[in-house]
């Protein structure tokens, strides 16, 4: 019971910080993947009354990654059965040129409008379809996800930091008398602070273990896996083993910084 009481004070806030950090890293990768998939699926359609060079379309803006002409036969194929062969022949002679543009990133509305204007300024371009309504809905959703992610992590991190500061004051009260007595008998700093650093080490390790355990559990949970697949996100792509190293580094750094704070406060007072 004493062990639990002694350790829970730092383990819980540390766990909250590490879990928020892991959540932040995983979710950020997921959002980036989602953004990439949006970008991959998104195309701008350019309609021109004469042939435009693909290179001209690519050079119009750095945002444009690729430009490819659409074969008119593909367009006519869809309406072939609904019109007479004569009409089809007439239509073939007047059909404009279509181009599909792939983008480097999934841009915001203003950026897209700018691109539209630049494309319309090209000679021969009559129409640019950016599917604004659908784009704005998806982009809004993306922004909402990103801002929620940062807000949530900031909130968890802030609360956890407050708890850690509180725990540091508790440590100071708990260990001050013992450290003072040891100092009266000439104990060097490392000896009288040994207990604190052992506590910090154990707490950081426990918090790391909890976070790692929960992360592994989450990435093996069928419900979470199904959810990720539904969003076209490969679980292997958003989780990295290196995360555990980063978490350990952060956990141990915070725990030892807390211990050092108590030690230096004691030095100042004495």
């Amino acid at each position, binding site marked *: 019971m004493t062990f639990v009481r002694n350790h829970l004070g730092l383990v819980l806030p540390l766990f909250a910080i590490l879990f928020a950090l892991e959540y932040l890293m995983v979710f950020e990768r997921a959002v980036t993947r989602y953004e990439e998939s949006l970008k991959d699926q998104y195309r701008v359609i350019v309609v021109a009354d004469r042939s435009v060079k693909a290179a001209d379309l690519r050079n119009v803006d750095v945002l444009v990654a690729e430009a490819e002409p659409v074969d008119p036969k593909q367009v006519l194929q869809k309406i072939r059965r609904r019109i007479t062969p004569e009409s089809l022949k007439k239509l073939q002679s007047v059909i404009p040129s279509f181009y599909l543009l792939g983008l480097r990133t999934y841009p915001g509305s203003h950026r897209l409008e700018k691109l539209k204007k630049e494309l319309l300024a090209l000679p021969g371009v009559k129409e640019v379809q950016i599917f604004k309504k659908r784009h704005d809905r998806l982009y809004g959703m993306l922004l909402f996800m990103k801002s929620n992610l940062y807000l949530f992590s900031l909130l968890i991190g802030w609360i956890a930091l407050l708890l850690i500061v509180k725990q540091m004051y508790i440590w100071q009260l708990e260990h001050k*008398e*013992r450290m*003072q*007595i*040891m*100092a*009266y*008998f*000439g*104990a*060097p700093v490392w*000896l009288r602070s040994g207990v604190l650093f052992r506590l910090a080490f154990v707490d950081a390790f426990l918090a790391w273990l909890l976070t790692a355990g929960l992360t592994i559990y989450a990435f093996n949970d069928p419900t979470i896996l199904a959810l990720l697949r539904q969003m076209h996100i490969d679980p292997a792509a958003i989780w990295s083993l290196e995360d555990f190293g980063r978490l350990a580094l952060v956990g141990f750094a915070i725990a030892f910084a807390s211990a050092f704070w108590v030690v230096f406060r004691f030095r100042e007072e004495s």
Partner: protein
Amino acid sequence: MSDVIAARNLKLAYPRHEPVIRDGSFRIHSKEFVFITGASGSGKSTLLKSLYGAMKPIGGELQVGGIDMMRINRSGLHKLRRHIGIVFQDYKLIREWTVEKNVMLPLIIAGFPKDVCRSQAAKLLNHVKLAHKADRYPMELSGGEQQRVALARALAHNPFLILADEPTGNLDEYSAQVVWELLERANQELETTVLVVTHRIPELFAADHRHLMIENGVVYDLR
């Protein structure tokens, strides 16, 4: 006889306060047993604090064990304290540690092997007649017993000087008598210099020991 403590025109003051000790000039020789008395608030404990480096003098000269306390640094202070035994009125035992481990504290700090620490602690606990309570925790002992543990701890590392601040202040008459006897034995058998701050010198010892008295910030040597 060599000087264990040498003070000349010593001045002690708390920050932003008038000096508590305005003029402290005295010498304490090796193997002496000295009482420091004075009224409440006269600066007895303050003087003792300056001797173990918990308070830095603001003027004069002070040497403890040949070390200049005006110029001592943190590491020098640690080293000096490893050769001094301190006894406090409120015992200052580590609550989470057993009686045995408390006695072992100065030896642990000095870096002795565990078996040496244990055998020395056993010897001293036997000396203060508390060997049977070695595994107990301080809170399980009476005040008199706790002070005997504190005395055993102060003697554990064979210090050249024992500083005791009102060691019997919280004790009943019988326990106080036991503590005085133990301090006397430490002085006579182990030849340790003993300096005791007290508001009342026990009658039994009054005639045999040297007596310093603090009045109005001045240390008087009454011999």
